[in-house]
């Protein structure tokens, strides 16, 4: 099974929503679409699922052109952000509905519904109706319906976005296991960089209706090919500033500079954009995070196990993200340390040059 997009585009009232897109999606791993709300993830899924017509281009399933086929004929499953179940049916009938449509009945139907319910741990709930379930159980029901069908492609459009944090964590671990070995192409849309990394597989970074980069998820994170890709894959947003390169030195401002090595040192002298992820700007000096930056702390944040601080250097706002609990005094000057070995450098056109 493969799903291939060849130069597909989408237009709404003459405005281009999806720019020419080429993707070859394979089974055996998750294909993640990562981008902010409004970037075009759902639009792309709708095109692939046949819910919206393409303005141009072709969609191929296993090499067969399916561009003109209706959704019903594409043999796909779709799970939305909002839990979609039939309210008047029991959980059993909800899961069974695609099988009934396919003309399956009797013990085969029973067996397949129970198998899907077992995988999603909702077997004790089969006799209930959706409104008697928690959000997580409702979404499990929708997922069970998506897997019972054994379709060729499964589209999961931010399926965990409306669930509790911990439940999201749990289901996110189960999902890849669920689809492993099924041979279907799994497409998963998310707006959270960390979710993409946890799911692994391959990722297409989407920004403004365009795929800025596609490839193995962690490779994209570590080696973005342009500034857009580096930023889409960063939450909080990546730190960016201008530097002037002279010789083998990068000058951020009058106080701050660092020595360049490798590709960066070989660049022609001039002005570049530097970007460094918040986790490579540390609140304490280490062997690698060694270039001091002094900023004024604006805001601090604490997640379960990480601390972040937003600080200003002149006009620019920077973010530092560190393991553990660090305390900062808001409004005070605080030293931060940049790791020069983790910096990305971009030319004026946004392409990464080092």
């Amino acid at each position, binding site marked *: 099974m493969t799903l291939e997009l060849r130069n597909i585009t989408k237009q709404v009232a003459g405005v281009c929503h999806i720019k020419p897109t080429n993707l070859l999606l394979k089974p055996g791993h998750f294909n993640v679409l990562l981008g*902010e*709300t*409004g970037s075009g993830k759902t639009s792309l899924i709708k095109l692939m699922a046949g819910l919206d017509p393409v303005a141009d281009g072709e969609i191929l399933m296993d090499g067969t052109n399916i561009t003109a086929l209706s959704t019903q004929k594409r043999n796909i499953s779709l799970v939305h952000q909002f839990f979609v179940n039939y309210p008047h049916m029991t959980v059993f009938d909800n899961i069974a509905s695609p099988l009934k449509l396919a003309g399956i009945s009797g013990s085969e139907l029973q067996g397949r519904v129970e198998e899907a319910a077992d995988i999603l741990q909702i077997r004790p709930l089969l006799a209930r109706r959706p409104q008697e379930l*928690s*959000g*997580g159980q409702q979404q499990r029901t929708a997922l069970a319906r998506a897997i019972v069908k054994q379709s060729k492609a499964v589209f999961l459009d931010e399926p965990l976005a409306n669930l*509790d*944090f*911990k*439940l999201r*964590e749990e289901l996110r671990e189960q999902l890849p296991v669920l689809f492993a070995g099924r041979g279907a192409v799994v497409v998963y849309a998310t*707006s*959270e*960089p*960390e979710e993409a*990394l*946890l799911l*692994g597989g391959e990722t297409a970074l989407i920004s403004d209706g365009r795929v800025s980069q596609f490839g193995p998820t*962690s490779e994209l*994170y*570590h080696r973005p090919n342009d500034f857009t890709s580096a930023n889409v*894959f960063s*939450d*909080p*947003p990546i730190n960016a500033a201008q530097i002037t390169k002279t010789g083998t030195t990068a000058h951020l401002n009058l106080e701050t500079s660092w020595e360049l090595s490798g590709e960066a040192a070989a660049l022609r002298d001039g002005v570049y954009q530097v970007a460094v*992820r918040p*986790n490579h700007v540390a609140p304490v000096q280490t062997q690698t995070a060694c270039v001091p930056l002094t900023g004024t702390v*604006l*805001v*601090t*944040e*604490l*997640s*379960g*196990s990480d601390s972040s601080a*937003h600080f200003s250097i002149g006009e620019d706002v920077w973010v530092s*993200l560190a*393991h*553990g*609990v660090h305390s900062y005094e*808001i409004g005070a000057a605080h030293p931060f340390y940049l790791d020069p070995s983790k910096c990305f450098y971009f030319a004026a056109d946004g392409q990464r040059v080092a």
Partner: protein
Amino acid sequence: MARITLSQLRHSYLPRPTGPDDYVLKDIDLDWHNGGAYALLGPSGCGKSTLLNIISGLLEPSEGRIFFDGRDVTELPPEQRNIAQVFQFPVIYDTMSVYNNLAFPLRNRGVDEAVIKDRVTKIAEMLDVTEMLQKPAAGLSPDNKQKISMGRGLVRDDVNVVMFDEPLTVIDPHLKWTLRSKLKELHQKVRATMIYVTHDQTEALTFADQVVVMEDGQIVQIGTPVELFERPTHTFVGHFIGSPGMNILPCTVQNGQALFDGHPVVLEGPIVAGPAEQSGGLTQIGIRPEFITFGETGVPATVRKVADIGRHSVVDTLVGEFIIKVIVEGAAPAQGSAVHLRFDPSKTRLYRDGWIATKEPEAAE
């Protein structure tokens, strides 16, 4: 602004509750100081919304009293409690301008227009919405609409408490972070008593000076963000805070020594005597993935899965049938390889029937 006291609150949606399982809130005692930033954190169904509705007066508790500054308000209707609320979905008047939306709660109470102008201008400045004031609210993006909702909650300076009920649910992750920071900043400027209800740990820990963690109608820990992370007093807190949460491993105790899968485990301090040791209650070891390292010696394990999440890797290891998660920065061991796990003793706790049962070592003089 007021100090809020909840005394022996219990609530059941059933007319004649019989056992503890019939109560969605089980014995809640809380004291919230004037001007504090508090969060109520817990999963769906833990009772946090019920508690919020009891504070706002939408619901009368089955048992117990609520006091604002020592005054019993248990039977007062919501409109007499003088509370501002911000909900999950923006509540604004689409037909009005942003200015009129912000002015609305004040006009409702007959506040002088000059005072209104002053308050609205100040709040708009704090929220960075000054340039939108004259625009119709209808055309705003969802995050700006929610900002205006927040502004409406904050514009009055005579409320007893401002309550936020999952206010960032509809906001895009990239914008959540600015709004999260904004709320904290607002609290520091306004210094009103604020209660923030959420299931999201980052929102709770970022916003609040003190977090109340709830599970199954009970308060399982009240603490600062540092306390909740460093030393959870209940396994639920260990699991719920942190991502991934604390590893909770079954263990046995023999002569004051904890054993996990046959391996002796050194704990932070001595085990507190309890009935469970005799009665055979459930004992577990709690250790966060951040506090486990790979070494030459330690508990033997095999690497089941490695997830490179960019700034670190989450390594799933297998000891017998148990999965233990380890966070490593830098190089992670390969999938399938044999490793040894070392637990940092000062961060390793014993829990008995869910509650912490090790004594913290005395601080050095």
